[in-house]
């Protein structure tokens, strides 16, 4: 354990809040993540199966507002997240390929459940119009009703299901 300590969470929270304010001041919008995945997916589908994109309602709606799905605010922001995360990890000596898990489960189990969790999150973020950062955090900062609702739903469900998933983590 020669890696550096993490930042104090309250200091981290203040800094994250400041990043959020800057995002609002510059661009009038908060942070997000799942939207970038959606843009990438739509761009990918457009390349692989352009005919399919033209005939499917979801993609069609999306393409109406975005001429080039990759030229999107959130896509650039997520590229920044990857760079920023890498920088912090490099400074603190945390760059390492590994599967993080509870010592009681195998790597395979962990990866399987991580992917499954991703499927749920991907689907839920589209249904709920935003993920933890885009809907819950940003929504709460602007005091929007949907921000509080999604925050309560996400964390409430996770707390409720924690008991059933305890073998994965404890």
């Amino acid at each position, binding site marked *: 354990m020669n890696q550096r300590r993490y930042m*104090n*969470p*309250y*200091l981290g*929270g*203040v800094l994250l809040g400041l990043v959020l304010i800057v995002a609002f001041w510059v*661009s*009038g*919008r*908060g942070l*997000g*993540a*799942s*939207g970038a995945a959606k843009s990438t997916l739509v761009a990918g589908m457009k390349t692989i199966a352009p005919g399919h994109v033209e005939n499917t309602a979801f993609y069609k709606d999306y393409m109406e*507002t975005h001429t080039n799905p990759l030229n999107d*605010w*959130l896509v650039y922001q997520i590229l920044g997240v990857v760079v920023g995360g890498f920088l912090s990890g490099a400074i603190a000596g945390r760059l390492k390929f590994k599967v993080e898990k509870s010592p009681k489960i195998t790597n395979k189990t962990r990866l399987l459940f991580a992917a499954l969790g991703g499927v749920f999150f991907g689907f839920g*973020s589209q249904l709920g*119009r*935003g*993920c933890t*950062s*885009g*809907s819950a955090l*940003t929504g709460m900062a602007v005091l929007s009703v949907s921000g509080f609702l999604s925050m309560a739903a996400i964390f409430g469900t996770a707390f409720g299901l924690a008991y059933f998933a305890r073998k994965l983590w404890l």
Partner: protein
Amino acid sequence: MKARLVLASVIIPLGLIIAAVPENTTKPYKLTAEQLLDEVKSGTQFIGPEEVADMVISKDPSLQLIDVRSAAEYEKFSLPNSINIPLVDILNSEWEGYINQDIKLNVFYSNGTNEANQAWMISRQLGYANNYVLQGGLNYWVETIMNPEAPENGSPNEEILKYNLRKGAGMALGSEASEAAQPVAAPGGAKPPVQKRETKKRVQGGC
């Protein structure tokens, strides 16, 4: 442990302050001098007398005529259903509800266009929308609507149509002119659509 108390001791006072002060609802000054000049040059603030007359006659409820001349002048002569907000009182909070709104179409007028334009510039700088200026002012109004000059014979149809329109408007508004309107060859005059100023939109966002 300690960090939490530091955070609390900073954020609670800030929260108290923000809860105590009233919300800032004033609209900031939005246009740079160049932008305002561009708008003035392009003349988008003007609305033609025919259009206004048409709205007055049809008793269009969305029209709000605002006389920016002095109260004495307003007493002497004013357009039907207009209200009087003298230019010097335009920033009076009493009138803010009339000028800062997005339901009605406000038309400022004065004798010429100077005072009305000044009123418009002030309201524009405050970021208010839906304010316009009567083109040519009252002088031009009287000239064109109340006492329209009959076009010469053989004028293009448009001219005659315009004349008839003005004539009709003038009569409806009670001018003395009583000559019958000249017949027009072309059927129906298209009313110029009311320009709706494009307002800034909220940023699109979301995850």
